[in-house]
Structures are given as structure tokens and as C-alpha cells.
């Protein structure tokens, strides 16, 4: 069916509004991050003078580098554990019949909506008593917990879509159970697992509340928390440019994920909703 040029133009205009909506705040941060100290206070959207001084500055800042390492390390470990543990549970929920299945879905749903602040005060105290306060495991544990509901839901949905008969077919064709799993099931399940891992990583990467409450030094403080403590190199220096540069740096991984995995992220986020 031919679509009229006028209709296409109208949609293009609407698309443009959406693009501006999503990009302007991000471009503003980017613009602020390349402004010179004098330019920061000119209030212009487009920088008049460009400099990469702010980026050079934050990459010489040990606290920020340490924060990045903490964010990446804690994020990857939490994601890995959440995906492994979540895959096991999701497989059981999607494939096996057992009493307690809906209880587990219910519990994970409750946790997805749980007010994290309610955990902060008790966890602060518990972690200090256990020596977990201001350590990687001290953040990894709550991160796994809050990544798990998403992981279980998304993966259970993916697993329900997998044509499991193929496994049986492969075995009938003479494949060993391990071969059937490795050559048939793994390739089918991999896209769902990758998508879930990205979503779980975003959850961990984004956290701020636990990161500022359960840490007290750069030993475990993640990048978003580190940024919020930026004060500038001296008390007379305004940290705006450095904060903007650091904010851009921690946004880059998300933009990369989004560009490469758009389709999967959308299907991962929407798969749970349809069943509602």
C-alpha cells in the first residue's frame, strides 16, 4: 500500500519531536562538559569554545577512576550472579511444574516494587556488624537482589518462547544430552540471556541510594556516588564542568548498549508487560 508523502512527513515531524525530547538533556550535558571554565557560566546551549580539559581532569582524579572501577566490577559481578541464579529459577518456572511457582513470581514482584530506602537503615547496621559495610560484597548483595526479579521475569518469558521440542528432536537424531543442550538450547536461549544481562547491568549501574548509604570511602563507592561528592580541585573551583564530563562518561556505556541491542532491550522490557 502506498503511503502518501504528506503522511510520511507528518510522522517524520513527530519523530523529530521524540528525538529532541530524548536527546536535548543529554546534549546539554555533553555541551556543558566541553565548555571552558569561563564558558560554563554563559548559559549558552552550544559551547562557544571547546575544551577537553574537564575530561582530562576527571581521568586524573583517582577517586573518579576508582569509582569507575568499582562501578564496572560491582556491576559485572552482580549481573553475572543474578543472571546465573535467575536463569536457574526462570528455567524451573518456565519448564517445570511445582507448587510454589506462583509464590516465587509473587515474591520477586514484591521485591521489584520494594522501597529500597526501607532496607537502607537496617542494611547499614547489619553490614557494619558483618564487616560488609563499604566493601564490594556489601553492594553486590543488594544489587543481585534488585536485579533478580527483572532477571527471573524476563528470562522466564524468553524460556517459554523457546521450542523445547527441538531438544528432543536432536536427541532422536542421535545427539547426546550435552550436545543437544550445547548445540540446540544454548543458541536459542543466548539472546534472552544477553538481553537480561544488559537490563540487569543497567539496574546495577544506575543505583545511587545503596551506593551512597552503604559506602564511606572510595573502597566501594561507585561512579554515580563519587560524582555527587565532586567538589572541584580547590574550594574556589566550580565542579560543574567536571561533574558534566563524569556524567557523560557514565552515560556512554548505556548509549553503546542501546545502539547495539535496541531491538533486544525493547523486546526484553515489553515481554513481561504483555502477560499482565
Amino acid at each position, binding site marked *: 500500500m502506498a503511503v502518501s508523502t504528506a503522511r510520511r512527513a507528518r510522522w517524520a515531524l513527530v*519523530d523529530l519531536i521524540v528525538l529532541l525530547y530524548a*536527546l536535548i538533556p543529554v546534549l546539554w*550535558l555533553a555541551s556543558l562538559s566541553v565548555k571552558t571554565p569561563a564558558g560554563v557560566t554563559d548559559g549558552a546551549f552550544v559551547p562557544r569554545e571547546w575544551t577537553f580539559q574537564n575530561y582530562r581532569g576527571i581521568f586524573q582524579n583517582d577517586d573518579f577512576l576508582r569509582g569507575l572501577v568499582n562501578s564496572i566490577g560491582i556491576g559485572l559481578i552482580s549481573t553475572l550472579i543474578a543472571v546465573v541464579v535467575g536463569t536457574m529459577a526462570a528455567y*524451573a518456572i518456565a519448564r*517445570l511444574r511445582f507448587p*510454589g511457582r*506462583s509464590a516465587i513470581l509473587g515474591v520477586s514482584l514484591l521485591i521489584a516494587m520494594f522501597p529500597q530506602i526501607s532496607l537502607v537503615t537496617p542494611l547499614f547496621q547489619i553490614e557494619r556488624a558483618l564487616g560488609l559495610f563499604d566493601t564490594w560484597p556489601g553492594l553486590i548483595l543488594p544489587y543481585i537482589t534488585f536485579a*533478580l526479579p527483572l532477571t527471573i521475569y524476563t528470562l522466564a518469558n524468553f524460556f517459554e518462547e523457546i521450542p523445547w521440542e527441538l531438544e528432543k528432536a536432536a536427541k532422536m537424531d542421535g545427539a547426546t544430552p550435552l550436545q543437544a543442550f550445547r548445540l540446540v538450547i544454548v543458541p536459542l536461549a543466548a539472546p534472552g540471556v544477553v538481553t537480561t544481562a544488559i537490563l540487569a547491568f543497567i539496574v546495577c549501574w544506575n543505583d545511587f*541510594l545503596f551506593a551512597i548509604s552503604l559506602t564511606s570511602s572510595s573502597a566501594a563507592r561507585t561512579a554515580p556516588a563519587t560524582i555527587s561528592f565532586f567538589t572541584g580541585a580547590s574550594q574556589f573551583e566550580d565542579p560543574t564542568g567536571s561533574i558534566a564530563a563524569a556524567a557523560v562518561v557514565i552515560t556512554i556505556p548505556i548509549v553503546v548498549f542501546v545502539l547495539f541491542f535496541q531491538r533486544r532491550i525493547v523486546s526484553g522490557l515489553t515481554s513481561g508487560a504483555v502477560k499482565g
Partner: protein
Amino acid sequence: MKRRLAEGERSERRLAWWLCAPAVLVMLLVTAWPILYSVLLSFQRYDLRFPDGREWIGLTNYGTVLTSGFWWSALWVTLLITVVSVLIELVLGMALATVMYRTLVGRGLVRTVVLIPYGIVTVAAAFGWKYAWTPGTGWLAGLLPPGQAPLTEHWPAIAIIILAEVWKTTPFMALLLMAGLALVPEDALKAASMDGASAWQRFTMITLPLMRPTILAALLFRTLDAFRIFDNVYVLTNGAQGTASVSITAYHNLIGGLNLGIGSTMSVLIFLVTAFVAFLFVKVLGTGTPGSGGRR
């Protein structure tokens, strides 16, 4: 034969429980234990600055919190921000979902770009909004009459907090709603169109009723999520000008005051409010949650 079937069933159950055990254990360890512990703490006077004064004081902490102006102000501000942002998000999110679902040009591009606000670290985006509204620095502050500093006044600050919250979370709402749009059969829309129904009539009489479960589920998720609002408030005002949300108030009480008794009391109260809102959604509005009821 019957016996062997039962045997198989039992081993299936056992396997399922073993597979679920680690996930359930971690989730309960990190949520149920602290929540129970904070119930215990909420009945004690326990201030880390005066650890020797620790004692059981029954409901005194609840009395202290529930008669405190700070608590009620924080609760109202949080409810206001929650209700206003979720309503705006619903309308904007529906529009955005329609665009992502229907657009004839650049569908992939639109769907990619809306994921940026979804994925961006809230704190990073919040700093962007903060500087945008800072007089002298910000491009948005530059549009206001000179001498205005919106983040230092109550209502403008609340409006900016809502703006930051809406910008960041509308795409998520839109993605959830888009999944619901996909459930509306094209044939029904086409038939109604042939019968002379206008686009608005088709939307209100076919699309919306069919999307009711999706909309309710999205509202439930976003309402409870908005109620925990912390990052945006922390960066934009840190609770100044009467903009402290309940999460900010509880946080300040812990880190600034080191008062575990009062902090735990707030934790318990926030948990109860959340549970109550969830209960309203599920029981009164009949919100289905994913996984409940039969799978379609």
C-alpha cells in the same frame, strides 16, 4: 506405572525447588531479614551517637515520627510528586507508545533514542537538569526573567523534580504501553473505522478498554517506583525548600542523624504505605500482575 509417574513428578518438584532455592534465598536474605530487623529496631531508642542509651521503648518512635511535621511534609510531597508525575507519564507515555508503534518512518531510530532516558544514570541526568536551571549556567534558566532561581523556591523546585522524573521514566512507561498496543487487534480498529468511528472514538472505545490490564500494571509499577523517589531530589535540592521525599528524609535521618530507631520506624512506615498502595491497586482496581492468573 502410577507409582512411577508420581516418582517423576516428585523429582521434577525437587529439581525445581533446587533451581529456585538460590534466588529465593538471596532475595529473602537481603529483604526479609533487614525488614524484620528494622521492625525490631523501630521499638528501640537507638542512636549511634549515644549507643549506651539503647533501650526498648515500645511505640514511642512511631509517636515521634507521626507527630513530626517533617514526616508529614515529606509524605505529602512524595505523594504529590508521585501522583502528578505518574499521570503526566501515562498521557505522554501513551503518545510516545503510539509513535513508536505506528510511525511509518524511522521506527528503529525512535525506539533506539527513547531508550537513552530509560538507561541513563538518574544522577547524571539530574545534574543536567540542575545545571540547566541554575541561573547564569543553564540554558533553561536563561529563558526565565533575570533574578529567578527556580531551584531555590518550593513550587518551581517541585516542578523541576517532576520534570526530571517524567523525562527519565516516560520511555519505560511507553515501552510497557507499547506491549499493550500490540494486543489490540488491527481488524477491530479497521472495522470500527469503516463503521465511521473517528480516531478518538477508536482510541477510547477499543484501544483503551483492551489495554486496561496493561495500563493498570504499568501504573502500579510506576506509582510504587515514583514513591521511592530519591536520586532526583538528592541532586536537585537535597530536600531543601520543603522538597524532601520520604526516602530523602529517612536517608538524612540515618546518615546525618545516625538515629537507627527513628530511621527504622520510617523504613517500616514507608514499607507499610507501599504495601497499602499495592494492595489498593491489586484488590480495588483489580490490577493483574504478571504471572498471576492463567498465562495467555
